[in-house]
């Protein structure tokens, strides 16, 4: 029984369809990536999972059971729009939020101290949110969403607005939570984070789930269409090879990036180049998630 399962869930706002027939399930110890452009229906999907709005059709099951108030305490939510009480002491508001999710005051206090310790910011216990830097506010917000040790964690744009050091810190923490058996639904625009963290993803476009499955499988479906050629001297006539779409010189002048129409073209390119000089590098790249995203979302845009 998967901890979180959506079955053909749809949501209409009047005439407009916000989410159309999305199905997905997330296992324990898994981070599931939910991708999509702005307005693609990610937030609506997450809000339905959180029970804020009810789906028009389809089912959302938590450990096989439908939504009820009790589920609230096992859900953790980090909203895209961050916000805490600016003028309330951090200990007060984080403990309050934990209490709302059914935690005892004492336990909440202990957990908060442990988390602050973990992030090395114990001295913020008695400070107010408005006194902190933006990055530290984000950390507090993150703590607020996980303090009650939720089984299911919903992270909307978890790493936005953070500097690289803090991104690494939070990424490490999210991985630890995953390894601790938590079920995590994760949305972002940053493809490199998805590639690093997620096993399975759904790309949404205009309310529809357009690509779904494991990241590996998805990448296999897309042709390798990019070749990197490395050479110390210029290579001539690359554009002339049949099947080459575009050639770009690398910034450092020590090679080229070449877009091709199918994988076989790569071999012809290799032959062509080897006739002219000794190559320092030859690589047929698998598509990045970024490319997949732009291709799948861009295609249906036309």
């Amino acid at each position: 029984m998967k901890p979180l399962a959506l079955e053909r869930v749809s949501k209409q706002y009047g005439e407009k369809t916000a989410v159309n027939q999305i199905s997905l399930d997330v296992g324990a110890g898994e981070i599931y990536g939910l991708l999509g452009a702005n307005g693609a229906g990610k937030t609506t999907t997450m809000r339905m999972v959180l029970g804020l709005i009810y789906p028009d059709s389809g089912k959302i099951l938590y450990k096989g059971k439908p939504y009820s108030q009790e589920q609230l305490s096992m859900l953790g939510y980090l909203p895209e729009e961050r916000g805490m009480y600016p003028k309330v002491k951090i200990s007060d508001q984080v403990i309050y939020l934990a209490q709302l999710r059914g935690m005892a005051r004492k336990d909440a206090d202990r957990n908060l101290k442990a988390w602050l310790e973990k992030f090395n910011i114990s001295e913020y216990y008695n400070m107010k949110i408005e006194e902190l830097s933006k990055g530290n506010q984000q950390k507090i917000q993150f703590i607020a969403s996980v303090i009650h040790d939720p089984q299911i964690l919903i992270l909307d744009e978890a790493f936005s607005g953070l500097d690289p050091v803090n991104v690494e810190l939070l990424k490490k923490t999210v991985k630890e939570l995953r390894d601790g058996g938590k079920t995590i639904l994760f949305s972002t625009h940053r493809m490199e984070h998805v590639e690093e963290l997620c096993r399975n993803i759904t790309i949404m476009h205009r309310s529809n789930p357009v690509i779904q499955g494991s990241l590996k499988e998805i990448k296999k479906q897309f042709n390798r269409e990019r070749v990197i050629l490395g050479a110390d001297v210029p290579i001539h006539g690359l554009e002339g090879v049949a099947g080459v779409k575009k050639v770009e010189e690398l910034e450092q002048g020590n090679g080229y990036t070449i877009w091709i129409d199918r994988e076989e073209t790569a071999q012809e390119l290799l032959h062509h180049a080897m006739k002219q000089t000794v190559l320092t590098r030859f690589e047929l790249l698998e598509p990045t998630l970024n490319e997949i995203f732009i291709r799948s979302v861009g295609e249906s845009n036309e």
Partner: protein
Amino acid sequence: MNNFMAVVGFTLRNKLRTKSFVVITIIIAVILSIGVNLPYIISQFKSEEGATQVGYIASNIPEVAEPLKAYLGANEGSKVQLVSYPDAGSQDANEQALKQAIKDGKIKGYIVLEEDAATGFPKVTYKSENMMESGITGALRTALQAVKTENVIKDAGLSDAQKALLLMPIQIEAAQISVTDNVGTGKTVEQQGLAMGFVYAMIIVLFMGIFVTSQMIATEITAEKSSRVMEILVTSVAPLKQMFGKITGMFLVGLLQIVVYIVVFLVNVSLPHNKALLAGWNLNFGDLDPMLYVYALIFYLTGYFLYSTLCAAVGSIVSRTEDLAQAMMPVTMLAMVGFYIGIFGMTAADSTLVKVASFIPFFSPFAMFLRIGLTEPAWWEIVLTLGLLAVTIFVLGWISAKIYRTGVLMYGKRPTFKELRKAMKAYKV
């Protein structure tokens, strides 16, 4: 239930810790203390001041001036005493001497009498540095009237008893009666004054307790929305629990504030010097109908829950605190109208306006309380008012809860009613 108490506790704690709230409460308490002690403070100053000295020239129509001085001198509580100055020869020299006396602080002003053949009584001019001293001219007028009357009736051959009768001031006593039951309550003037004062004070307290506190709810909800902490709140606790938790918490805050004011008031009133003053005025809070306190509490509760649910709904549809005042306008108007009906209806508690208003739920906490305090409305009228209030609270509470449930999730520009209805349908609330 646990969550509910957490919301109540958090609301309460936060508000009580806010600096501005504490400061405002202290300031109002101080103003209240000063207000209560003001009569005493004024009376302290008065006794030091004594009567105002007014000069006149002894030779200036003595047949009027002499009795005037005698009359003012004989009257113990008189605010004005005449001081005579010798004739310096000419009118200019006289005025010069009197002006010098004003300069020296011996007198406040002086009177000049001139023969007036047309009325047969001298024309009197009071001259002083200040303008419009109605207290002094009033006292002089009363005294002159008495002198004039005595001058006229002197030769009419009236007995002393008849003269005394003629000169005695007229007194009107007003007593309130009840026509609904057979036994007239017959409140005395003092009791009426006390009831009036109590109702007046209570309407202000009601307004503060009901509207000012409700407004704080709207502000807090909008603040939660604009700081986006609402996103986490609505996913942690059912919106209804959150809304009524906040309303309850704020109610306790308001109640606490009112209790503080009442305690400050009572402590000040029971200070020895104020007690004596109150006793002198024949005021005794025990004279109030105890039911009036009960009604005050009932109308406070009903009014508060009526306005607070409305304010919560308004607060929930606004995303930014800057827009709140505008969105609150209709509710503010309702509360203001109710308040002013209560205040201005004081002098005409029996008017149709007050009667009609006492059945309109938004105004009835003020208007009906006014009627109960100052007149004797029939029991069924009170029951009807409370019934209407209860129904309105229930209906509005239900609608407000729905609006709240929808509003907290809507960001961006303030939604129209149509958009709100659409969203409600979409959210299935």
